């Protein structure tokens, strides 16, 4: 392992600038269990003023539990929190905020029908004789965000904000609620999950600009981001802290190794012999000049059986919309798609599924899964469409068989076919989405960021699964934000900009892969 393990004693050497030798925020021996499961065990960490701390671990490693304890949502079974050396107990998020500790949620926590300043003051409105002082709140709010260097109009309704602006508003809110504290601690829970490249840069610039005024704890699955932004990184595994390292000493490999406890591969998809010289079959799908209004297209290409066709592009390049267009979820205003012998003009989702194209959306929670239904219901959701010919009755035995097969083939970790999807880890949830199309042997899959938000081990399994599918002749259109992943997985890669392909697709066969730089040059 590249990094050395730091001891508590070494951490203690970093005294806070406010003096007194105390950390600005310290967690001592925190444990928490839920019924039979130990979610956190004896976890300690210390943060100094002006530091950015990275917190990484696989899904289920205890990150969320820790964040919830730090902000008073959950109470620890054992252990103690200290703010500026003072022992504190938070029983709710408001108390935590009074001590300057606040959380910026992964799912944005703003009310979109209200204005920016109303969100900023939500629950703490300024009143005079019971009447809201709107003017004062508006002016103070604008001055507040301007002073932070956040460029938003607080008088605008939040629904008009971009995704990025909403996040900026949330960060402003975190500072706002902890105004009383001289040293706010702001916890960022997977803040880059919904962001594309440009949004990430804006966020990181802001964190860098504000690092003298607050302590940031940055939680993310994207290890390169954690390395880029953090001073020090804590690694959690199975509810315990397994490693502390400075960002300078760590690499994505060393972090991964600490997280999963073995040498593993984000590298998986790069290993040359994992991708054989593809033995490509007949043409599976031909896309002929498809266009959506004036935002996407015209785009033409074809995919062969067993081929992975990668698509990359910056935010706004239209790659996500193109995925939706292929799924039949957007109107095809011009052009046509041919799959399995049928040519479709302006198909619906239903038409595309009939023709043999399955779509795996970027956001599995809002578009991919029925979280409070069983693994079985989710797996068979596509196959029930034309089950049993024209008979109205379902073939429950066939559904169960397909589900059990999928659980075995995809190694889905679930108590059984009737367990709710909600209780599965992110990686296993994503496997259920894939299983839905396997269950009816869909020949063409359109995947939009299929490994988003799942941990390293699960990513590796999804890569292997995609490879196995292609060996069976399944074609995959692989849309992704992570360039190394797309490069490693694909046989060919198209770069999108302004809704169209830039030039001819790159050849990305093993031994002949384009570099990230080559792709980026075309992207911008």
């Amino acid at each position, binding site marked *: 392992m590249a990094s050395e393990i730091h001891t508590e004693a070494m951490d203690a050497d970093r005294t806070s600038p406010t003096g007194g030798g105390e950390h600005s925020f310290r967690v001592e021996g925190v444990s928490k269990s*839920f*019924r*039979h*499961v*130990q*979610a956190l065990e004896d976890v300690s960490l210390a943060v100094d003023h002006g530091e950015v701390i990275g917190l990484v671990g696989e*899904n*289920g*490693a*205890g990150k969320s539990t820790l964040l919830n304890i730090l902000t008073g949502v959950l109470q620890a079974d054992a252990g103690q929190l200290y703010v500026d050396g003072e022992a504190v107990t938070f029983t709710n998020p408001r108390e935590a905020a009074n001590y300057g500790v606040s959380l910026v949620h992964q799912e944005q926590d703003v009310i979109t029908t209200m204005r920016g300043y109303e969100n900023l003051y939500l629950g703490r409105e300024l009143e005079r004789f019971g009447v809201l002082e709107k003017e004062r709140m508006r002016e103070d709010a604008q001055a507040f965000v301007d002073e932070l260097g956040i460029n938003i109009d607080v008088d605008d309704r939040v629904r008009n904000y971009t995704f990025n602006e909403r996040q900026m508003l949330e960060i402003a809110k975190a500072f706002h609620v902890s105004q009383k504290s001289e040293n706010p601690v702001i916890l960022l829970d997977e803040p880059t999950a919904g962001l594309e490249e440009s949004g990430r840069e804006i966020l990181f610039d802001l964190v860098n600009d504000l690092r003298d005024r607050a302590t940031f704890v940055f939680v993310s699955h994207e290890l390169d981001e954690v390395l880029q932004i953090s001073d020090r990184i804590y690694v959690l595994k*199975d*509810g315990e802290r397994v490693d502390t390292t400075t960002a300078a000493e760590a690499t994505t490999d060393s972090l991964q190794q600490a997280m999963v406890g073995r040498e593993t591969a984000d590298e998986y998809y790069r290993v040359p012999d994992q991708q054989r010289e593809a033995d490509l079959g007949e043409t599976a799908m031909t896309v002929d000049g498809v266009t959506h209004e004036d935002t996407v297209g015209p785009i033409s290409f074809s995919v062969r059986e067993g081929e992975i066709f990668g698509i990359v592009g910056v935010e706004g390049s239209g790659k996500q919309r193109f995925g939706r267009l292929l*799924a039949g*979820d957007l109107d095809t205003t011009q052009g046509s798609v041919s799959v399995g012998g049928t040519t479709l003009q302006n198909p*619906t*989702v*239903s038409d*595309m*599924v*009939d023709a043999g194209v399955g*779509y795996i*959306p970027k956001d599995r929670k*809002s*578009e*991919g*899964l*029925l*979280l*409070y*239904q069983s693994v079985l*219901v989710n797996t068979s*959701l*596509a196959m*029930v*469409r034309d*089950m049993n010919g024209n008979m*109205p*009755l*379902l073939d*429950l035995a066939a559904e169960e068989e397909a589900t059990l097969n999928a659980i075995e083939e995809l190694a889905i*970790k*679930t*108590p059984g076919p009737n*367990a*709710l999807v909600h*209780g*599965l*880890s992110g*990686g*296993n949830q994503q496997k259920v989405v894939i299983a*839905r199309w396997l269950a009816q042997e869909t020949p063409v899959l359109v995947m939009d960021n299929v490994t988003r938000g799942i941990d390293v081990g699960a990513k590796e399994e999804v890569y292997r699964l995609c490879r196995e599918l292609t060996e069976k002749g399944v074609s995959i259109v692989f849309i992704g934000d992570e360039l190394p992943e797309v490069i490693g997985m694909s046989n060919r890669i198209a770069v999108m900009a302004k809704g169209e392909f830039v030039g001819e697709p790159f050849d990305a066969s093993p031994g002949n892969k384009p570099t990230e730089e080559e792709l980026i040059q075309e992207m911008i």
Partner: protein
Amino acid sequence: MSTSSVSEWITAQREQRTLQDWIQDLGPFVMLFGLLLVFTFTTERFFTEANLLDNVAKNAVTLLLVALAGTFPILQQSIDLSVESVVLLTGVVTVVLIAQFGMGLLAIPLAIGVGMLAGLFNGLVFTKLKVPSFLVTLGTLSVMAGVGKIITGGSTITFRNPAIRTISTGDVLGIPNLVLWGLLIYVATIVLAFRTKFGRYCFALGENERVVELAGAKVDRYKIYPFVLSGLLCGIAGVLLTLRISSASPNIGSGLLLPSIAAIVMGGTALTGGVGGPHRTILGVLVIAVLNNGMNLLGIDSFVQEIILGLVVVAAVALSIDRAKIDVVK
């Protein structure tokens, strides 16, 4: 927490059911049993075959059909508020077709067809014009009641046709036909909910429409079907009710909406959609039917009965709703 411990945790949660879970599952049974006990010991006539079959069971059938009708739109996270007006309209149509047009059995499918058309109209406005089902059916609740009342001319209309009446009033081996129809339809709705694609999509749509759409289902169609089914079942209720009393008054069916929704929720179908099903709706129906009958036997003033029924409904719903799944109540 590793993945395997997550599954352990789920299993543990299954094993350790909370008090709330037990109240939800057993509450309606306990309530029904309690009411049966109370009325058996406080009245002489309650626990007799004549009362249980002729009054409780027969009266429960109309409510059962209407509650089953309402279950499917609620499962898919919509709601059909027009149910009682469909009962009124189809009941009136039945009487008019038999009495004024001299129709026989043909009146029955025609009246039920009117109910299905009403449901289809609700469904089409809801899906194609994208008006919330709550508002569409609130509107048609009023419209259809008005149409039905105009047809009656404001007073009770009657027909004479003893042969047709036996469909509702006859019996098989001592069990009233009306009750048999109710049970038959009850079983059919359970099959619909759990063994057909239609039922599966009802549950799925109730949780997340986008997911169902991206899985390739023709979503609009499956959002309309529950309303057509609701119209069908309310039509059957209207026909059976008028055949039973061989007349239709301008206010038949009125007062069914509140108890039917109460029965659905008591049975465990959440107003937030996606969970529950028609199989337990019958429990809520029986609780309300027994309560009504018992209060009548005790000679409780009918206005006081309204108050008690309303309170029981709110209390039962409050106990049976799974608060853990509801963040905000609106």
